[in-house]
């Protein structure tokens, strides 16, 4: 990325922390991303096959009492987020269609591993009830035992698996 746009980590962290704090003060809840993504795919599945969605104990409650799962705080946050990083990349001059990867891996292999990692995280985020933003950062600030456990386990899992995919990144 463009060097002149790069914030030192402590400043980027404070900015993200303030975003979280504003959400606490205004809405009394945390920010989060994986919830919005799951709501979107639930709606997509419901459009294609309402039968499967309604028979799923997990997804059907999103639609209980005729609710629209997309009429949700997290989905509005998601929309703002997409806009925010899009504008940021335009300002910094690094909006570009590309596949970012390490020097020793082909684009096709990188995309295959991205898909695999995405599947794992899509499942894991549902099992853990959140992801890095909604569970780790927000819960970390709330001093939640579950969130600190999550962070320790994420890093344990990451370091344990790092050796096997090192060619992708180094």
């Amino acid at each position, binding site marked *: 990325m463009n060097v002149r746009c790069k914030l030192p980590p402590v400043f980027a962290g404070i900015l993200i922390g*303030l975003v979280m704090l504003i959400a606490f003060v205004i809405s009394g809840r945390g920010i989060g991303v994986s919830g919005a993504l799951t709501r979107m795919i639930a709606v997509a599945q419901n459009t294609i096959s309402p039968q499967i969605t309604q028979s799923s104990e*997990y997804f059907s409650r999103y639609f209980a009492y005729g609710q629209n799962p997309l009429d949700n705080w997290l989905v509005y946050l998601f929309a703002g987020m997409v806009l925010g990083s899009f504008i940021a990349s335009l300002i910094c001059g690094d909006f570009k269609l590309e596949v970012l990867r390490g020097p020793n891996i082909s684009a096709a292999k990188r995309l295959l591993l991205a898909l695999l990692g995405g599947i794992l995280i899509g499942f894991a985020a549902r099992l853990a009830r959140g992801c890095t933003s909604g569970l780790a950062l927000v819960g970390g600030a709330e001093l939640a035992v579950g969130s600190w456990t999550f962070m320790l*386990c994420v890093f344990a899992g990451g370091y344990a698996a790092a050796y096997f*995919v090192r060619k992708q990144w180094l």
Partner: protein
Amino acid sequence: MIAPFVKTELISEAMNLWLAIPIGFLFGFALHHGGFTDSRKIARVFYFRDVDVPIVMFTAIVTGMLGLWGLSLIGYMDTSLFYFLPTYLLPVAVGGLLFGVGMVVGGFCPGTAVASVATGKIDPLIFIIGFFIGSLVFGDFYPVWGDFYNSDYRGVWRLDQLFGLQLGVTVLLMVVIAIAGSMFLRLVQRIAWPDTFIPVKGAVLKVQVALIVIALVLATVMAFFPTSSYLPAEDDSGWHIVPRVIITTPVSGQ
């Protein structure tokens, strides 16, 4: 007590939804400026080659933590109206391990992937398609792991309750851990990959030192402030700000 605004009806539910857009905007903006729209930066944490990600996480947590509990301490934030995450210990631990493997394989977490797609990158788009598949597998085959998902429920359970410490003391402890942890990670990076190390100098260094001092001072004030003074009188224990609630139906994550 006037916060949280939507719970004290200072703003309407509809206004609350609309305000999520500028909050999200700032979040996406910050993620890009932190460099988190680049998968390589995230994955290289796991080789100690670039430890910015955990340092940003530590800093964000310290900022949010000092803000949330500090505002509660001065009586501005009513934490009894606040939504706290419930803990299901074993599912969160297993989910975390899988999540970590997914992060080093895929190079993203959900938030950074969404921000990265918006900057034109293609790998996060594929990652998000994977995320959709993983979520569908979880939801459509829910009976297979539903019992495990709802097991080991601990209610709203905080570190101060775990340690048996006062809330303010726990905040101070976590601030110290965050600062020490960040410095340790940077040291490991410097030893393992000397060529990647860029020393912090000049004004940036001065501001960072000042911010660390401010965080420590705030946390110390909170630690030695009589925290029981802002707890509701009917609360059964000095450690509880929010009483544990029994939830019978599964609760969705973030």
